[in-house]
């Protein structure tokens, strides 16, 4: 049975178990967010996707990403109060991640030209906003190499025991999902270095171009039952090989 609610005075139908953010996005109503990823579990960390929710007599400012839709709910995504609180949280994040383009752009959009706050005392990974998207992606892939460490103002993202993690395969998904792109990844023709660990890259068996890390390949073969010869060739050489096969059939 569908749930009926109103978002910015627009009547909307949603399914039980859905959350405000996804329903709004489906309607083309944009709500800013930094820590949300549709494929990963919700956390509600950045506190940017704030909306005003009225449910019966209860009215509150809350995050759209983790609030379940309810019958008769009225959601306002763009009130002065909502904008003010979004801006304050962005100002806090701007002090923590002054060089992150995504934070800077969003802050500017919300009228936060600069942060009145000092950078936090504990900030071992510069520009990290502690949203745990990297941890969530890493766990989702089954690696569990990254951890949220400590708590409170000392919370950080790191590796168990502060040393390179055996579980890391160097796939770089953590960087892919990072909203501030604060994770360092360095690549040479033969190696990739990430989280303090240098991985050997598989080289294309025909042209020698780098493909993926050896560890990632081993993991993919093990968990995804990929044929062993699928990933030791770069995609261009795979194409050439395919075209040659095709040519021999056609002509």
């Amino acid at each position: 049975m569908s749930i009926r609610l109103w978002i910015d005075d627009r009547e909307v139908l949603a399914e039980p178990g859905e959350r405000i953010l996804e329903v709004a996005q489906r309607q083309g109503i944009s709500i800013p967010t930094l820590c949300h990823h549709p494929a990963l579990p919700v956390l509600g960390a950045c506190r940017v996707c704030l909306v005003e929710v009225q449910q019966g007599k209860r009215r509150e400012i809350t995050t759209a990403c983790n609030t379940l839709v309810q019958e008769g709910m009225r959601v306002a995504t763009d009130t002065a109060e909502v904008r003010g609180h979004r801006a304050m949280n962005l100002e806090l994040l701007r002090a923590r991640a002054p060089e992150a383009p995504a934070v800077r752009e969003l802050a500017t959009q919300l009228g936060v030209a600069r942060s009145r706050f000092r950078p936090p005392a504990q900030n071992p990974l510069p520009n990290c906003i502690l949203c745990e998207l990297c941890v969530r992606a890493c766990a989702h892939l089954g690696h569990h190499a990254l951890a949220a460490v400590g708590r409170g103002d000392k919370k950080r993202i790191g590796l168990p025991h502060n040393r390179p993690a055996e579980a890391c395969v160097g796939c770089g998904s953590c960087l892919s999902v990072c909203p501030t792109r604060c994770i360092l990844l360095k690549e040479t023709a033969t190696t990739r270095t990430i989280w303090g660990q240098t991985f050997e890259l598989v080289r294309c068996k025909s042209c020698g171009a780098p493909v993926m890390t050896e560890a990632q390949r081993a993991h993919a073969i093990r968990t995804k039952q990929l044929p062993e010869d699928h990933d030791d060739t770069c995609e261009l050489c795979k194409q050439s090989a395919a075209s040659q096969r095709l040519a021999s059939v056609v002509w």
Partner: protein
Amino acid sequence: MSAQAVIDPAELDEVLARHPQGQPAGLVNLLHDLQAAFRYLPEQALERAAEHLGLSSAEVYGVATFYEGFHLKPRGEHICTVCMGTACHVRGAARLLEQAERDLAVRAGQTTPDLRFTLEQVNCVGACALGPLVILDGKYHGSMAPDRLSRLLGKLSDKKGSK
């Protein structure tokens, strides 16, 4: 705190054996038992705990560092805990902590290089009527004053020194 203390593998096995395998819900209680056995949580113990409960090292490490009650570094032979609860605070707990920091030449949360003393603070132990309170090796000392604390700490260091 450079040397990683050697832990007895038989004792580690014994603690693990008391906890059912593959049940992640038992993690916090298991960490308590490991800490009771080794006085802190050595890396090796955390790794084995992860294996035992079917968790990743990252999950166990994340949990162990989240809770204030777990210590990942070796602790001193004597533990001086200054209660920083509200009742103790309004009766001058901060001064006790400063005094202990001066006397032991370490900051709160640290252990002296000779592993003799660890200075800790706790956010209330529920003995508020006794504030300000210091716990020395498990014994509660109420209505504490900086000079009295100095004397108590001094006595403890002498005791070992004369042995």
